[in-house]
């Protein structure tokens, strides 16, 4: 099994255990993807984690964009903006950085 | 009777036996195998009449093939059509006793040999020159075309070139096979070369891809009516799964309206 900073990940790079997550892991993952984590990235990551804590599930992209709109302003509350932060998709890449399991299904 | 005549007569019955038993086995197998789900393929027929129409288009016009590839269609269709015409043309030889008048009128069908050979050569050329088709071809695929070409050529030589066999002997031999009144082959060796591969084809029919002929009638994609919503379609093995009417899935609390 592959690891990142000592934490086990699956073949697609998602943490096997949510509890293994640390900010350093997010940092390391983003470096691998060639992304520099900005405060905006962290807003997204934090929201994903909060939501996950409550629902044991990642928020729908729509729910995420609305939450981000509230936090960062309406001009940033859209999926185009989120994709500019997370080119591989806010749900998939965002969840990976946040240590959450990969959303599956027709998404 | 000559040894070769005896051999060919024997070979014919062996082929016929393989053909009949092999094909019956396959037909029964196809018939018995259930089709548990409705899988008609577009353009699907919404009723039985539609299914008949579809088969008409597929069997007589090769409609799907026409959509797919005009060259293959042209070669394939001429070949098959010619084959049918030539079958009727050959009936006169096999007809035992008094031959009905209509069969004497099939004389001109002999020209079907040209589209036959045209189609076969075209199909062979595609197999040889189109890389995709070359890739999917097994030795048997070439062999089968070559055998058909051989049959066609020998037949044409006997008809259009100066290799006519003794027609009366041909007729006696051929109809003798049907009536079990065996008689000697005509002396011309070309006749043997013509019928021997035909008997081979008869024998391998139920063992080879020639099964596409009966197979097409059993393809659920073609023969099913697209009415799954209106009529419950259930195969035997699938219906057994319903013996336990109550499904043991957990219940949920549902709000009342």
């Amino acid at each position, binding site marked *: 099994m592959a690891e990142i900073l000592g934490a086990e990940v699956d*073949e*697609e790079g998602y943490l096997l255990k949510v509890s293994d997550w640390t900010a350093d892991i997010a940092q390391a993952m983003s470096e691998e993807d060639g992304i520099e984590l900005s405060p905006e990235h962290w807003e997204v990551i934090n929201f994903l984690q909060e939501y996950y804590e409550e629902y*044991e*599930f990642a*928020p*729908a*992209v*729509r729910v995420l964009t609305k939450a981000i709109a509230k936090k960062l302003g309406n001009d940033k509350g859209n*999926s185009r903006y989120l994709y500019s932060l997370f080119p591989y998709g806010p*749900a998939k890449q965002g969840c990976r950085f946040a240590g959450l399991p990969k959303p*599956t*299904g*027709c998404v | 009777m000559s040894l070769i005549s005896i051999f060919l007569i024997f070979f014919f019955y062996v082929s016929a036996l393989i053909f009949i038993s092999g094909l019956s086995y396959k037909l029964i*197998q196809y018939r018995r*195998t259930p089709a*548990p*789900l*409705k899988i008609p*393929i*577009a*353009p699907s027929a*919404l009723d039985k009449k539609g299914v008949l129409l579809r088969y008409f288009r*597929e069997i007589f016009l*090769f409609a*799907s*093939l026409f*959509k*797919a590839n005009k060259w293959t269609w042209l070669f*394939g269709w001429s070949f098959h059509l010619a084959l049918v015409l030539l079958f009727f043309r050959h009936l006169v030889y096999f007809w035992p006793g008094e031959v009905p008048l209509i069969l004497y009128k099939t004389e001109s069908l002999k020209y079907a040999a040209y589209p036959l050979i045209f189609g076969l050569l075209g199909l062979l050329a595609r197999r040889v020159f189109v890389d*995709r088709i070359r*890739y*999917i071809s097994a*030795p*048997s695929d070439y062999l089968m075309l070559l055998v058909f070409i051989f049959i066609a050529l020998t037949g044409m030589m006997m008809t259009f070139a100066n290799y006519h066999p003794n027609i009366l002997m041909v007729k006696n031999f051929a109809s003798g096979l049907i009536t079990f009144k065996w008689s000697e082959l005509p002396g011309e060796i070309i006749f043997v070369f013509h019928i021997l591969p035909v008997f081979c084809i008869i024998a*391998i029919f139920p063992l080879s*891809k*020639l099964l*596409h002929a009966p*197979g*097409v009638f059993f*393809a*659920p*994609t073609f023969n099913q009516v*697209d009415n*799954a*919503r*209106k009529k*419950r379609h*259930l195969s035997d093995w*699938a*219906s057994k799964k*319903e013996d336990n009417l109550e*499904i043991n*899935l957990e*219940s*949920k609390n*549902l*709000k*009342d*309206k």
Partner: protein
Amino acid sequence: MSTDNQIKLPTYVETPSIRKDSMAGDGPFKASVEIQNKLGFPGEKVENWQQVAINKMAETKSKYKSVQVFLDSCMKCGACTDKCHYFLGTADPKNMPVARQDLFRSVYRRHFTFAGKYFPRLVGAKDFDEDMLNDWYNYFHQCSQCRRCAVFCPSGIDTAEISMAAREVMNVIGVGQKYTNQILGKVKKIGNNLGMPEPALKDTLMDLEEEIKEDTGVDVKLPIDIKNSEILMVSPSADFFAEPHIDGLIGYAKVFHESGVSWTLSSYASEAANFGMFIGNYDVMREGALRIRKAALDLNVKRVIIGECGHAWRVAYSFWNTLSGIGTGAEDEYAMRLQNQLDSQYPQPQHMIEFTYDLIKNNKLTFEKSNNDHRVVTFHDSCNVARGSNMGDIENGQFILPREVIKAACNNFIDMPKNTIKSSTFCCGGGAGLLTDDLIDLRIKGAKPRMHALRKSEQESGVNTLAAICAICKSQFSKVLPNYDFDPYMVVSVHQLVSDAIVLSESLKQKD
């Protein structure tokens, strides 16, 4: 349109010369022990796998007429060889439908036919060895079971049937695909492909209600688990989660609202998709269908309607009546128990498009079509809808109805080139369990024929919007469009177009 082009390129993508092994490889990620076991499959490749596989092949061909007949009746005419989008996009000859079938057929011939037992070389019969299994896994996961090849086969051979059978055999020997099987496990446990638990689902629906209220000022509801509703709506779970799917869901809600008919979603059956079809497993597929049956019974609904999901509609339309009795015209006790409850005046199940179309025909909906005037719309026929179902119970209804719904909501509609739509439609490239990141290379290449057709329509008619009625198509297109220099946001649900143009009667009253 240059007719010249049409003659030269009958499929619009030039048929490539074959490039052997260009897509060779080990295939997508394999399912873990845990994932496999959840579905009742062995977790790892079983010891005597060859024997188990051969036995399973024997069983499958004795249970499925399609498999038995198709294995025998291919005449190697080659008509299908240039019909598969994966072949056109990759040039790997094993992606030619007949060559894909031959992976299965060569083993069948070796073990089950006289010719293959005694003259294997002559007829291309092969042993089931490691290499063959590897090819099976790799290339049966490069087939989206789209059935385009079947439309052109003179024998009516449907490669998808072989592909499903092959996946079933592989699962039984313990070689399963991670993406599909993991999702099936989630449906089993939670009820949808996403694994979205009930609270998250309910919260999302509430969010959407708020959003509609903000946008329109009207209280459009997205009810869930409401007993005795008229309609049970089953949509693909991607509609609750992904973009642009979710706008389609909003569209359904608005249409239902305008119709005045009561409707509900179900948290127990919160998934229309049924990946059981992809792995050719009757029981898994049936289990999915039974969830819907149970929800329909428990909620005591009169009608069942399916949202925009391609293969879900095929399963619902063609298989549900068989699998779980959701339909009409049954004569057995089991199915009648449900069918007596359902209202037989309506087709059961029904597609959302059919529902909307009926309202449009009866002048029950008003549209402000100019809302969509910035769009030049084209429609992507999803394979499973186009080739495996019908709508409206009229000939070609599955092509007519969606287009009529679009035209009712939009002024500018243009079809893509003729041989890339309707029954000849090209797959989006992501169907049948291939919509996974580990197959992204294949997905991009497989989308090529569709992208070429789209480019043509873009250049000739200014098409800027691609409407679809399938969750997989929408996700796949959103992902691959940028690779072909298109805007990923040009993909919309058909019901998003409806949603954008529909006039809610209450908002009119409010204005007065």
